[in-house]
Structures are given as structure tokens and as C-alpha cells.
């Protein structure tokens, strides 16, 4: 029965053959639209980036094979879908999602139309069939998402919800379950992503929901939820960590082998158990007349011979996953750094302020990647590691540029698969001097030596306002006074930053060759020019340069070299 609610929107409390076709077609379109997003998250069981493609092709075939005919009962439609799904299923995700249709077919058998609670029961049966199709079910995958989704659908149906309400509950539960998958499966946590198959299923349900609610056009974009249990997860919704990309390439995955056995009296459970002996990621589903096998053997021959002994084989596909993985990794690298060429060596420098960043970039001749941080905003080890992993090189020179960040930086080399060397810079002026000593023409160790020497050859000065009365270097400094610190020691105090700067410049004897001054974000433009002139007068023979650094906290940062 169809009725209208107050808002005029159609509500539906049953599903017949036509409605089921429409829901599945809408879900299929949604998966197709979001296919690349699903592919991009694919790291389990094999990081080959084809989950979305497999699900989309499986669903499209189901839709194509199930022509909409009003006279067909939902039981017959579901039965046809289940058979088409089994035959068309591609990859792990395709075969597991096919079980949803198996469950629906069982729940709808012989029925003209089904109620919301019968629909939910079908989802339950589908989840059970999915768990049964895998010899070694793992939580944190599509299986978990199917189970949780079915439970939510049942609860909604029990409280009297219509089809849209059941699908809405299922869809919301699916997204939530997907977000939690990194807490259940280590490989997802390591890669910093949610499960791609589960996400694909949530997209399918979201598409079906739009159809049930009479909105959307099947081209909606459904973004994956942020991974829970992954530090800084919100920043990395769709991207796979680059360290994982590299590691994936070193693992051998073999051949994705899929085929159908047609025969008599086939023992699905026994075939499933035997299939696990041939390789990883086995998924086996079907009935006594038709069984579909999916497995990842290193050699596809034996499992195919085994199948041929049981019945007639068809639909054999064998894909070299090592090639797929390499392609996927190449694609991920491109995605991670569009327009940036792969470098022999890259510099990752912790700094803040647009002019300071620009100085690092200039010094690094295009090979320096700034990562935000400094006083009062120390980046975590994870932040540094992520920046290192994202940098377009296998060899990284890490410049912490702050004594409070040095300890975190020193953790990074052992956590990264890249060759990471920390140049122990403890101030911005020393860090910039180190970056200017970088050479594209020498190796990593020679760069570490040259950059360390450059950093040690710099005296670092700063001018900042005291935020409270304090004793510094045995002298009392009053709140609001400007302090000039040279290599951490107080060399001058003054009522204004310019005087403090000039006092400091004068105090450095013998005169250095080069003095570089970076003016802070709070320094007025008029004062910048005055500072340069005053510093030049105080600097004797030294060459003085001043550029706007835009850094917070410090009116001036100064390098004496």
C-alpha cells in the first residue's frame, strides 16, 4: 500500500519485484559514481585498488540481468538477482556482496511482496551467508558492516519503520561501522583508511535509500567517513599513507583466481575448506549445482585442476595481482603528489610564518617541504612521520628547528621505511642556514654533514616581548619589555623591539659576514625598513639582509653567520 504523509513524500511499506529492481539499480549507480573513491581505499586483502570496480561491475550485471517485469514477484526477482550475482561476482568484495542477494532471495522465496521486517530478515540471511562464504571471517571488513547493517535494519523494522526508514537505519549504521573498521583490522589502521568493501556497501545502501525517499538522481557523491582509531584520521579521509603504498609493493600476492563450477551434489562447505589450502583470501559460495570460487594462490593451476575434478568450469578469470598492486601504488603516488617530481632527496622543515616557509623553500631549491610547527605548536611524531611519508623522495633530511621538537623528530627515522636523517637544528635561523647548505649534487650523508656544519656556524638571535616578570640569564626582565636572546642567552632588554635588535647586532663581535633578519607578523611595515637601516649601521662590515618572515611570537629572528 502506498500512502502520502503530511509532507507529501511517498512512503512505502512493502517491496515488490519492481521496487526491488529500482532500489538495486539506484544502489548500483551510486557505487558506480563513487567507484574511484572506493578503489582508492582498497588495502585489504590485497592493495590493488579494484574494490569499487569489482562491486560496480557485479552490481551492473545484476541490474542488467534482471529486466524489470511487473508480473514478476519479488521472490522471483530476488532469485534471479542472487544467481546473476553469483555468476557475475568479481573479487572478494563482489562475491561477498553477492551474498546479500542470496539472503534476500531466501527471505523472499515464493512471495509476491515483502514487508520491511522481511526485508531486514533478508539482510540478516545475507550477512550470515557472507560470513559462511569466507573460511576465515575477519572483523573490520565488509562482513562486519553487513552484520551491523542487518541488525540496524531489523531494529528499525521492529519499531514500525517503512522501507525508507529501514534503509535509512541500515545506511547510517553502515557508515558508522565503516568508520570503526580501522579499530578492528590492523592493516587498515596502518594504512590510515577505512575498509573499502564496507564503504562500498554503505554507498550502495545510501543510493538505495535515496531511491526509497524519492530524491537523488543516482549520481550523488558519498564520501567515506573519517577513520576512527587513526591519529589525525580526519585529515586523511581518502588517502592511503605513502609508507603503506611502498610496503605493499614488496609483498607478493600472486594471482586473483575466480571461476564457477557447475555440477551435481556439490559440497559447498567441503569445497570452501579445500580452497583455503590453495591460497589466501578464499571466498566460496553457491549451492549443490553451482559454486563460485575466489582465491589468491601464488600458482593458479592447482585450484583450477581441483575445480575441474568436481564439475564443469566456466567464467575463469586470472589476474596478476602483483602487477595490479604496482599499478595501484603508482597511481597512489601520483595522487599523493600531483605536479611534484620525485626527488633524489627532499627536506622536511618544521616552521611557521609565510616568509620563513618561503626562505626554506628557496634554500631547498624546490626540494624543501615545510611542515607547520614551532613554539606553542609542537607537531607530534605522527605529524612529522606523515610529512616525511608524503614527501616526494625516499631520502629525507628532517629539520626540527626547535629544541622542543628535536626529540619527536629523532623518533621518525626508526618509524619510517624511508632513509630519514635528522639534522639537529634547534632554531629557525640555524635551520634556514642548514637548508641553504643543501646540495643536489651530493649524497644524503654528505648533505647531513654540510648542513649540520652550516647550522653550527650560525648564531641564532631572537627578539620577543616578555609576557610576565621573569629572571632570564640571571637578569630580571619585566613584563612588556623586549628581550634580545642570542643562542638562548639574554644580551639586551629594551622598551621597544628595534632597540633590542640593534643592541643585539652591536653585541656580536667580531662582526659576522652575513646577518639575516626575519621580521615577525606583528612588526609594522614602517618599522621593518627602520630596523634594516638601524641594523646596517650597527653591523659594521657585515652584509645585512632583512625579509618579512611573518612568524608569530618573535618580532625578529636573526641569523649571524
Amino acid at each position: 500500500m502506498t500512502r502520502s504523509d503530511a509532507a507529501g513524500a511517498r512512503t512505502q511499506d512493502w517491496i515488490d519485484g519492481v521496487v526491488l529492481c529500482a532500489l538495486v539499480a539506484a544502489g548500483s549507480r551510486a557505487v558506480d559514481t563513487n567507484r574511484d573513491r572506493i578503489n582508492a581505499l582498497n588495502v585489504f586483502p590485497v592493495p590493488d585498488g579494484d574494490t569499487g570496480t569489482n562491486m560496480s561491475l557485479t552490481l551492473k550485471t545484476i541490474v542488467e540481468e534482471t529486466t524489470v517485469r511487473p508480473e514478476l514477484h519479488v521472490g522471483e526477482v530476488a532469485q534471479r538477482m542472487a544467481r546473476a550475482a553469483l555468476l557475475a561476482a568479481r573479487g572478494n568484495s563482489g562475491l561477498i556482496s553477492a551474498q546479500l542477494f542470496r539472503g534476500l532471495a531466501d527471505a523472499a522465496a515464493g512471495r509476491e511482496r515483502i514487508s520491511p521486517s522481511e526485508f531486514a530478515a533478508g539482510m540478516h540471511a545475507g550477512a550470515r551467508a557472507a560470513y559462511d562464504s569466507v573460511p576465515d571471517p575477519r572483523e573490520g571488513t565488509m562482513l562486519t558492516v553487513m552484520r551491523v547493517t542487518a541488525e540496524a535494519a531489523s531494529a528499525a523494522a521492529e519499531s514500525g519503520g517503512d522501507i525508507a526508514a529501514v534503509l535509512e537505519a541500515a545506511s547510517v549504521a553502515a557508515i558508522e561501522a565503516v568508520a570503526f573498521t580501522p579499530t578492528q583490522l590492523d592493516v587498515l589502521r596502518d594504512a590510515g583508511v577505512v575498509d573499502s568493501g564496507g564503504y562500498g556497501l554503505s554507498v550502495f545502501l545510501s543510493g538505495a535509500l535515496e531511491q526509497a525517499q524519492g530524491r537523488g538522481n543516482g549520481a550523488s557523491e558519498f564520501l567515506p567517513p573519517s577513520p576512527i582509531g587513526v591519529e589525525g584520521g580526519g585529515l586523511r579521509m581518502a588517502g592511503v599513507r605513502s609508507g603503506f603504498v611502498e610496503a605493499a609493493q614488496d609483498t607478493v600476492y600472486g594471482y586473483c583466481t575466480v571461476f564457477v563450477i557447475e555440477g551435481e551434489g556439490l559440497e559447498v562447505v567441503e569445497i570452501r575448506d579445500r580452497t583455503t589450502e590453495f591460497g589466501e583470501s578464499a571466498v566460496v559460495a553457491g549451492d549443490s549445482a553451482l559454486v563460485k570460487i575466489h582465491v589468491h594462490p601464488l600458482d593458479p593451476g592447482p585450484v583450477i585442476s581441483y575445480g575441474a575434478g568436481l564439475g564443469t568450469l566456466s567464467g575463469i578469470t586470472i589476474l596478476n595481482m602483483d602487477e595490479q598492486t604496482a599499478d595501484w601504488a603508482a597511481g597512489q603516488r601520483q595522487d599523493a603528489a600531483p605536479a611534484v617530481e620525485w626527488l633524489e632527496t627532499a627536506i622536511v622543515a618544521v616552521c611557521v610564518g609565510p616568509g620563513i616557509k618561503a626562505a626554506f623553500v628557496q634554500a631547498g631549491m624546490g626540494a624543501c617541504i615545510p611542515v607547520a610547527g614551532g613554539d606553542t605548536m609542537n607537531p607530534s611524531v605522527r605529524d612529522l612521520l606523515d610529512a616525511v611519508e608524503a614527501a616526494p623522495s625516499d631520502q629525507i633530511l628532517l629539520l626540527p628547528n626547535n629544541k622542543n621538537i628535536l626529540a619527536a623528530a629523532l623518533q621518525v627515522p626508526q618509524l619510517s621505511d624511508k632513509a630519514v636523517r635528522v639534522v639537529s637544528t634547534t632554531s629557525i635561523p640555524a635551520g634556514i642556514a642548514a637548508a641553504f647548505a643543501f646540495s643536489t649534487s651530493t649524497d644524503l650523508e654528505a648533505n647531513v654533514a654540510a648542513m649540520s656544519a652550516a647550522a653550527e656556524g650560525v648564531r641564532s638571535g631572537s627578539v620577543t616581548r616578555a609576557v610576565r616578570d621573569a629572571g632570564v640569564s640571571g637578569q630580571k626582565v619585566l613584563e612588556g619589555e623586549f628581550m634580545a636572546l642570542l643562542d638562548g642567552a639574554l644580551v639586551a632588554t629594551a622598551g621597544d623591539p628595534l632597540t633590542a635588535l640593534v643592541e643585539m647586532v652591536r653585541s656580536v663581535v667580531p662582526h659576522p659576514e652575513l646577518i639575516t633578519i626575519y621580521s615577525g607578523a606583528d612588526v609594522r611595515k614602517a618599522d621593518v625598513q627602520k630596523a634594516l637601516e638601524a641594523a646596517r649601521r650597527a653591523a659594521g662590515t657585515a652584509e645585512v639582509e632583512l625579509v618579512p618572515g611573518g612568524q608569530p611570537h618573535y618580532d625578529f629572528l636573526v641569523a649571524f653567520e
Partner: protein
Amino acid sequence: MTIAIVTDSTADLPRGLADEHGITVVPLIVRFGMEEFKDGVDIDNDEFYRRLQSENELPTTSQPSPGDFAETYRTLAADHDGIVSIHISGKVSQTVNSSTQGAREVAGDDVRIETVDSGQATIALGLIAVEAAKVAASGATMDEVVATARDAMTRARFYGMVDTLEYLLKGGRIGRAKAFLGGLLKVTPIITFEEGESAPVESPRTRRRAIDRMKALTEAAAPFDQLAVHYSTEPEEAAILAQEIAHLVPDSGVVTSQIGAVVGTYAGPGSLGVGFIRAKSG
């Protein structure tokens, strides 16, 4: 069996060195407005740099015509069995294309002509041509001379510091050295040729440091078969640099070369550098 070696004026070979090794140099063209000069033939280098710094409009350059090359090859074909013609990187100049077209007109049963894209420029190209000429003079076959040139290419490099990137940029030859641009601090960029075009090496803050760094880079690349110093407008600075790195080639001595008008159009005044062919390792 005699093989002639041809290069172009971007090799910045001192005339004495080219003559000593019997290397034929085909000049590129440099133009100030409508005034056209053959590089190193019609215009004196010092006169060129004076005009480069005094005139408002920057000069332009162009490759020799295929006809220029054909004429050179025809002359050489009279008393040679083969010609190996080694040129500036095809990524920054059409010269090697022009030489290949010229060679097509002349090459035949009497004379074989091979053109080689050196992937290099300035004195690094010049030293590759010298390596090839040495082998040719010892009676090597055409294939041996070409192989020698290609092997020398793998060991050839120059490091050059420029006072300003303005000339490289305005001349459209900035290549990967564009990584130097955009910063506010004053630097004296050291560039090299990488994969046939300008590429950044280091960004020293002062000229004095840049010269120190070039010395260090040169020392790190030793030992050498050949070593040269090249400059655009500061011969005294070049002489000091040559003296300071002379110990790296005790037998052969350091070649000193003035950068000619065509390369000078892009390097600008105040340029100083080193070029070398590393010794074969092992």
C-alpha cells in the same frame, strides 16, 4: 681512415685548443636587434658583454642553418672518411637538429656523418669534443670515436654560478633551475646541466661562498681526465680559481675558457664555473 670532429660555438672552446685538436667549430648566431653576428667570428667576446650590459634590449640567438652544417661537412668530406658532429643539448637548442639535416644532404658512400646530442653545453661540451678528437687522432674507427664521445658524455659536467638568473629566465633557458626563483633572499645560484637542461645544485648566500662551494664540488668529483675553468667577464677571478684547483690535474693543466656570446646571452656577466671530464673509474 681519418675522422673529423665538429662541434658548435656553444662549446666555448678556446681557439688554441680547438686548433690543437683539429676541431671544426660551427658558429651559432647572436643578434642585437637587426644586427647579426656569428658567435666568436664576427663579434669579440668582450665587446659582446659590453653591449649585453649597456643595451636596453637583450640579444637573441639562433642555431646555424642546415646549409651552414652541409657546407662544413662538404669541405671536411674532401679529406676525411667520416665526421662526428657533437652538439649542445637538443633540449635547449635546435643546433643538433640543424646538423642532422645538414648531414643528410652530404652523407653518402664517400663519407659517413654521425651527429651526437651531447646533453651538455659550454665547456663540458667542448671537453667531450676534445676527448673524441684525441681518439680520432690516434686512428680510431668512426664507431670508436662515437663510442668515446658517448662515454665522455657520462663523465662530463659543468658547475656554473651566475650573478643573476635574469638572463636564463628572459632567454627562456631556465629549465629546472626555476627552482631558484621566487625567494626573497639574495643568493648566487650554482647550476649544472641535468638531463640536458639547467638544473639547481646549490644556493650559496654570497659570491665568496659560491666560489668556495664550486671548489668543493670540483674536489669531490676528482680525479679528472680534463678540467677547465670558464668565465664571462672576470678573467682575474677565473685565473685564481684555476690556480686553486690546478693540483687536481697535475699532468694536463687547467683549461681556461671564456664563455662566448651565445652561452653568455643566457649566463650573463659575472658568471664563473668549472667544467670537467671525470677519469674513468675502476
